[in-house]
């Protein structure tokens, strides 16, 4: 294609230099500066071709307490990916923006360690010098041997395109949250296991020490203690303390709130990932064999093999010099799953941002065309709809499916060590433990379990320091942030119940279920917020995988204190967000709140104490958010300047502005904190495992179709046959060739329902009328035998219903076509060269066609009389008038639109449960034979 216009654009400039001399040079102001990176062989559309890497990649880094920030791995795991890009340096950059730089260990005023259930933070960071921009997702994992038991990690999506990061922030955040959640789930399990082992060790140590002390006591009956004895006693005391500490940690980790479950994007086990399932099945083979209680048997089988070790005094706090790897930290299964998820993310966000955006817009628009989109669109795109419904409506029904899956897939660690066994000799206060069946409808069972008082104090201490930030993008607020501060103050001014003994402020932060709030947090440790995810619930079993499952119940206790220590305790059910329970109702009886329906809770937030305890809520109108503003988007010239409508949506501005204020002042010049205010559920998630397969399929089909329309001069009547619902039979001896043709032509076949396209790739048996009713495109084997004659006979018999494309002799027998629509669709002189492009071209025209069909089908007066006196003839003439004049259809094109309209009507009218086959419509029109 010499004449192709794009040749010029790619021609090296030197070749034109001579000519350029002759021409009068342009005035300075009109001349376009040369593309600065042209020498690097990059295309002019790549904005940051100065960067040291070409493709986006995902980097996982750790802030190691020994060596500082260090990169751990990249996805794709290939040295070429990062090129000369300095991962170490970049790790330093991204790790340094973690504002939640976890406060851990012993908080002031408390001698016991505790865990922070720190939410992930999500920030965007840019380094213009490096030409790298990153979405950075920070998370912390627990490690018994680490300082403060936490290991900060971060996952970063690094791209050269700033706009890509900014515009795909929401999607990135959603996807990375899934990955992070998966990691953390695994980590909690591993951590709990580790703690249990440690407790066994300590228990054993205590027994040994105790025995030794007893022996010593017996040995000297002089009435005074030897230094040795005192030492032993001290040691014993420290072990006791250590036991308590670890016991508490175990409780804390087990009490990990299941709030997450309700999160729309929490899917540690991606049901789509076939790979994962394979992994899982391999992983879980041993456990699934016993369906009753897989976890228990699994763990019991393994645990007895662990022999407790004697722990030297002081060794409890010692650090191993070798820190655990990420894989060790979070269970191989979960680790591989996370990697899969990250790989998936990498695949999903591969490519130019324009492409991603177009895809998303396209999908969003398609969703709007709920009436017509079944005709020509991919099932995968449409299938997403129910999937997303699941995501958004995750509170209820979806849970079950996920849960059952989870149950199958992962062993459920049960409590192996009874809490009772750790009961120390310290005076214990009986507290009530409410064992609640997760389904809050069921009656609760109470079960008294003794706890030592100190545990309760941990509780308070824990409450103080832990901060939760929900799923939201946190605006990094400090004391200085003014806008922010008012909010944080409002949170800090929550009712304080002074207790006579300890002055502890307890702020009840009741949150709504929505995680999308933009929150501004103050990090002052003194202002303790009770995070919703830290609940005073102590499940006796870690059942992270069986959240709402009734079989595995978590035990919640609402610890009641002795009257002197009047404190308000929060009893939370896992289903509900921080439900405050009065101390009065906490003592002695089950909290009735558990039984309350969720709907009421949302109201409760505000009126409970008369205190604004809800963080500002952005509008949750995401349902409309994306597509309603599409016109805005399209009018926006700069594609990369923010096409996503939620950015343009004025409704979001208020919240965004708030964030910008703080952003401008306090964030460093390159780091952005974006407030994506929508739940991710509605925004079309580009991550669809099928999408890649489909992409390939589309490309192939497009290519074949392109070949077909170039090769066969009678492509038009063939396509017309398909579009008008006349079954096209591709007849041939060679299966591969027939299948190829069928694939090519299948892109023109309108679907009859929401199921698969009515395409049968290969049939060897004679056809009957049912086949034409069911299939609109059939690949048929030509048999040279008496049976074959029979088959041909039947084809001849049914010739009025079918068009026959003979792939061997290259003939086509079908009705005449003289319209104008198909030539546009299948122009054999088309300049389109790529399969996927052609596919899109076809989709484009077919979508136009669909809209015509929609108009035609849904115009009342075209089908029904305006008044009673009107005759059928006048309606018919009006109808034809409309088709020809308004829709501009010529000749046979009318039939195409009529057929599509008929399909639309059927689809719309159809009862969802009716199993009736679509009828076969046909015309009595003559067929003609086309030859090459």
């Amino acid at each position: 294609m010499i004449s192709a216009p794009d040749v010029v654009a790619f021609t090296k400039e030197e070749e034109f230099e001579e000519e350029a001399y002759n021409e009068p040079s342009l005035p300075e102001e009109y001349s376009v500066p040369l593309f600065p990176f042209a020498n690097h062989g990059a295309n002019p559309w790549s904005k940051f071709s100065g960067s040291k890497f070409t493709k986006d990649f995902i980097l996982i880094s750790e802030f190691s307490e020994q060596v500082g920030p260090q990169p751990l791995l990249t996805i794709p795991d290939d040295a070429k990916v990062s090129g000369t890009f300095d991962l170490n340096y970049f790790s330093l950059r991204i790790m340094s923006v973690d504002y939640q730089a976890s406060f851990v260990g012993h908080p002031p005023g408390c001698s016991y360690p505790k865990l922070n259930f720190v939410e992930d933070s999500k920030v965007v960071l840019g380094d213009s010098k490096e030409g790298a921009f990153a979405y950075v997702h920070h998370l912390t994992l627990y490690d018994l041997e680490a300082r403060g038991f936490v290991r900060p990690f971060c996952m970063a999506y690094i791209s050269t395109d700033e706009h890509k990061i900014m515009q795909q922030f929401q999607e990135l955040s959603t996807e990375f949250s899934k990955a992070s959640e998966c990691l953390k789930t695994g980590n909690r399990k591993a951590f709990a296991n580790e703690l249990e082992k440690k407790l066994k060790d300590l228990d054993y140590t205590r027994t040994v020490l105790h025995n030794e002390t007893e022996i010593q006591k017996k040995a000297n009956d002089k009435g005074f203690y030897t230094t040795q004895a005192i030492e032993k006693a001290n040691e014993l005391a420290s072990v006791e303390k250590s036991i308590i500490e670890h016991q508490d940690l175990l409780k804390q980790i087990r009490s990990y709130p299941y709030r997450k479950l309700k999160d729309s994007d929490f899917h540690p086990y991606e049901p789509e990932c076939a790979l994962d399932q394979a992994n899982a099945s391999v992983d879980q083979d041993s456990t699934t064999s016993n369906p009753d209680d897989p976890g228990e048997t699994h763990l019991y089988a393994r645990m007895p093999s662990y022999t407790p070790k004697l722990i030297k005094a002081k060794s409890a706090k010692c650090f191993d010099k070798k820190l655990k790897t990420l894989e060790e930290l979070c269970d191989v299964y979960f680790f591989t799953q996370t990697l899969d998820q990250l790989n998936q993310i990498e695949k999903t966000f591969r490519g130019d941002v324009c492409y991603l955006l177009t895809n998303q817009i396209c999908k969003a628009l398609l969703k709007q065309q709920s009436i017509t989109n079944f005709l020509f669109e991919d099932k995968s795109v449409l299938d997403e709809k129910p999937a997303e419904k699941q995501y958004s409506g995750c509170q209820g029904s979806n849970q079950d499916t996920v849960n059952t899956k989870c149950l199958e897939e992962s062993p459920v660690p049960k409590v192996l060590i009874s809490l009772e066994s750790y009961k120390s000799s310290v005076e214990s206060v009986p507290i009530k433990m409410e064992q609640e069946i997760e389904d809050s409808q069921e009656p609760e069972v109470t079960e008294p379990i003794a706890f030592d008082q100190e545990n309760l104090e941990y509780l308070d201490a824990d409450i103080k320091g832990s901060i939760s930030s929900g799923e939201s993008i946190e605006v990094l607020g400090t004391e200085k942030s003014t806008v922010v501060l008012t909010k944080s103050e409002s949170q800090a001014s929550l009712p304080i119940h002074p207790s006579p003994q300890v002055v502890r402020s307890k702020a009840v932060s009741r949150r709504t279920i929505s995680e999308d709030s933009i929150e501004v947090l103050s990090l002052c440790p003194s202002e303790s917020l009770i995070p919703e995810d830290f609940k005073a619930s102590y499940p006796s079993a870690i059942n992270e995988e069986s959240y709402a499952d009734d079989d595995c119940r978590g035990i919640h206790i609402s610890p009641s204190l002795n009257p002197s220590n009047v404190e308000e305790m929060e009893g939370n059910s896992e289903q509900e967000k921080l439900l405050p329970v009065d101390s009065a109702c906490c003592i002695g009886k089950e909290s009735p709140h558990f039984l309350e329906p969720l709907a009421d809770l949302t109201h409760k937030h505000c009126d409970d104490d008369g205190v604004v305890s809800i963080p500002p809520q952005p509008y949750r109108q995401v349902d409309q958010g994306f597509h309603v503003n599409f016109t805005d988007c399209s009018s926006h010239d700069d594609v990369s300047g923010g096409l996503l409508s939620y950015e343009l949506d004025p409704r979001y501005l208020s919240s965004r502005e708030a964030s910008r204020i703080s952003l401008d002042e306090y964030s460093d010049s390159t780091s952005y904190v974006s407030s994506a205010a929508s739940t991710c559920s509605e925004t079309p998630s580009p991550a669809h495992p099928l999408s890649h397969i489909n992409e390939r399929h589309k490309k192939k089909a497009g290519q074949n179709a392109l070949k077909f329309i170039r090769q066969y001069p009678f492509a038009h009547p063939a396509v017309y046959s398909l579009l008008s619902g006349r079954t096209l039979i591709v007849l041939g001896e060679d299966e591969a060739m027939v299948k190829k043709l069928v694939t090519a032509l299948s892109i023109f076949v309108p679907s009859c329902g929401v199921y698969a396209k009515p395409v049968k790739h290969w049939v060897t048996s004679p056809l009957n009328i049912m086949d034409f009713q069911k299939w609109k495109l059939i690949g048929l084997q030509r048999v040279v035998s008496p049976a074959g004659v029979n088959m041909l006979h039947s084809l001849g018999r049914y010739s009025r219903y079918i068009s026959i494309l003979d792939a061997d002799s290259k003939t086509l027998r079908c009705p005449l076509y003289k319209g104008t629509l198909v030539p546009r669709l299948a122009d054999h002189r088309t300049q389109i060269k790529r399969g996927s492009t052609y596919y899109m071209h076809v989709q484009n025209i077919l979508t136009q066609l669909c809209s015509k069909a929609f108009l035609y089908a849904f115009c009342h007066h075209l089908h029904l009389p305006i008044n009673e006196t009107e005759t059928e003839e006048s309606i018919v003439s009006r109808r034809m008038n409309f088709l020809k004049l308004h829709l501009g259809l010529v000749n046979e094109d009318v039939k195409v639109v009529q057929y599509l309209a008929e399909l639309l009507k059927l689809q719309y009218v159809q009862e969802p449960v009716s199993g009736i086959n679509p009828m076969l419509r046909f015309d009595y029109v003559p067929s003609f034979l086309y030859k090459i």
Partner: protein
Amino acid sequence: MLRWLMGGGREPQGLSEKSSVQSLGEEQIQNPYTELLVLKGHHDIVRFLVQIDDCRFASAGDDGIVFLWNAQTGEKLFELHGHMHKITAIAAFPSSGACEEKNHLILTASADRTVIVWDCNSGREVQKVSCFHSTVKCLTVLQRLDVWLSGGSDLCVWNRKLDLLCKTSHLTDADISALVELPKNCVAAAVGKELIIFRLVVSTEGSEGWDVLEVKRLADHKDNILSLVSVNDLTFVTGSHVGELIVWDALDWISQVCDCSTWDPSFHTVTQKEIKLSQNQHEVSIQHLTSDAECVFAAVGKGIYVYNLQMKRVIACQRTAHDSIVLHIAKLPNRQLVSCSEDGSVRIWELREKQQLPAEPVPTGFLNMWGFGRANKQASQTAKKMQESTSSYSLELIGDLIGHSSAVQMFLYFSELGLVTCSADHLIILWKDGERESRLRSLTLFQKLEQNDDLQLRF
């Protein structure tokens, strides 16, 4: 092998080349059936279709299952299991009294020597009668008397509650193959070659009871009587395997013999003559008869004949209407005739009056022309048409319905709703007027839109 493809002809060649059956091009302007719905359910040949009411029909066949269908939507309403063997007869028993609530019953007789009464509204078996000595081959409902008759080796009379009212003695020579109701509480039964007239008389014992008396045996037919149809209160017609068609006076069947003499001799005799020539009785056997007020339509072999009762002669015919034996014909209200055949096709004919009457029929030529079994020898179709024009009317093919892959056993005409055909290929096809269906769908669409309030929402 590829001739059908390469030839590029406009006709379904596979069939038309074998014989000289009149064929229609692919353009069938008058054929309203442009939509079809295949109803699947049966596992064997579907032989019977019976209309229950305006929009329901039942189908039955060799698999012993009875299906109830909705003729509009093609929805399968009920699947009635009860018979062990193939079904030999089916009849609808409409509710009689106006005061009664509408309970539609259907009766089915099977080769397992049972008759089952089904309730069409609930799809349940109402009662099963299994006291027959032989297979019941025909069922007739005498609506007037609110009784039904079953015919096998004897004739039984039953009332609605399935009490056996009376029965005839065992018929030795043959079983009753067809029954037709005649005036004056009489019934004509075809028993082999004989036509037996029975009369129902009120029994002496009770008010409810009936007695059945054999009144007359008519042995005019020389071969088995295949079809029996009542034209009006005054006439009924029988057709036999060798092509005899006899018109009887329904009131006074004794004088019927005389009537037979007035019966068009050419038709009668020529058939017999030709039999001797061709020895192919199938070619002339009268498979089915139907009639309207003035004409009798006979499916004779592969052809269709129209006999006018007034003129007492065949007014129109189509000797090779199908490639194979015509199994069923029916007259539609709009001068149309539908026939179905073993060749798997259904054809729609129109009875048209000829504008100019050609030359008066010459007896000898007439004989020649009416020769049965010669159709295949006639090469030119147009020539044949010219010959046919001697009758004042002609049967014009206006459309054919091709869908079944095997013999079409029967069809039912549901006026507006379409046409239902059943076939040996186990399928039932519902043929519909595409235009009308499209209109109906539009109507439903807008009703649904209104219902859903989508009109406001979307536009």
